[in-house]
């Protein structure tokens, strides 16, 4: 599976990438929304799955987008909704959002807009990693079933 990770904490991204690569996935690291957009728009990669942190550096955002992202707090969501989901709605079921600000996002955009997206509250415990791994396995199985018809 080709996985795009949007995470501005280098060490988190480092160990997540390491794990996913060992599991046999191709991983593309993005450390800000500008990086993520370059990878998403590139014709060289077909992204199967996305792991998105909400509070990332908003690079390439307009003033309006920056305002909507609450100064970067929900920048991951703004990028996802404006650039990814408008282009490919099927990505909804293949996206994992993990953040400490899941509740802020729910309050801001409402549950309807988040339907189908896999939400994982970020914590320091191992459960965040376990939940992300479970979701990735589920997405992988879903794509496998699709390929087999």
């Amino acid at each position: 599976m080709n996985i795009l990770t949007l995470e501005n904490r280098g060490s988190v991204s480092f160990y997540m990438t390491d794990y996913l690569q060992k599991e046999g996935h191709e991983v593309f690291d993005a450390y800000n929304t500008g990086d993520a957009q370059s990878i998403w728009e590139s014709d060289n990669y077909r992204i199967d799955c996305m792991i998105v942190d909400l509070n990332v550096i908003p690079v390439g955002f307009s003033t309006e987008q920056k305002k909507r992202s609450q100064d970067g707090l929900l920048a991951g969501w703004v990028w996802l909704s404006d650039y990814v989901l408008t282009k490919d709605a099927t990505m909804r079921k293949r996206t994992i959002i993990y953040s400490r600000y899941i509740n802020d996002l729910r309050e801001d955009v409402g549950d309807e807009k988040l339907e189908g997206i896999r939400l994982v509250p970020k914590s320091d415990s191992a459960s965040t990693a376990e939940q992300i791994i479970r979701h990735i396995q589920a997405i992988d199985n879903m794509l496998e079933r699709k390929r087999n018809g």
Partner: protein
Amino acid sequence: MADKMKFKDMLILETKKIPKFKYIMEGLGYTLLIISFVIVLFISTLAILSGYGSLRLANDMVEQTCLQISDIINKTADVTGGKLTSADSTFIENSLHRLECNTKGLLDSSTIAFLFQLFTFILVSAGIYLLTQSQKNLRNAEKMARTTKKFVTTITASSAIEGYLTLTYHGSWKLRGETNAEIRGNVEDYLNELKASLDRLDKERMGIEFYQHKSFVDRVVDIRNNIKCMHSDNKEYCGGFEAIIESCHKILHDSGFVGRYDALRDALPDYPN
């Protein structure tokens, strides 16, 4: 910091002293071994010769006594028809007693010579064993000193990298909001120093502690993001800065610094984990 440098200098000095010390010890060991080998060879030859002489002597004595006794018996048979006189009996008894005492004495001296040879053999074996052990210990001590030196250098180098990362981060953060040639020049210098330090660390097969490595990776990505968000007037410098920070990120990612640090630390038995 001063204490750290002192300790490092002391270690370097100690490491330099080792070869001279090693050669002196080895030379002494071999000289002693050769001397003891010559002594043992001499004493063993003497003991063997003396043992051989003793056995020959004992053999001669037995032969002579047997001849004397047989002569007496023959004479007695001829003269008295088989009955020994009391003088002959006393002579035979005395001869046999003398023979017994002398043979016993000779056998005792042979046993002592054998035991002495055994003792010297054990002594030489113990000497060879001790010499081999001391050589092994010396090699281990030498290796340990090299590892300790490398470990201390690793920690010092990591601290320097941490410093460059902090300076670069603050400089790049400032460049997000303003354009300042001096800050830009400083950031470029710090970035180059950072890259050179990481290259050196990698080339010399040194490591970085796990949590420090995590914070380094975080900092490098923060700097990278700052560069991406730099003030529009600084944009023309972005490409160069980005290329350097990307290569720093790649070195941190691919070099296996954490594993190397763990291996170095584990090689020091007294280091608190």
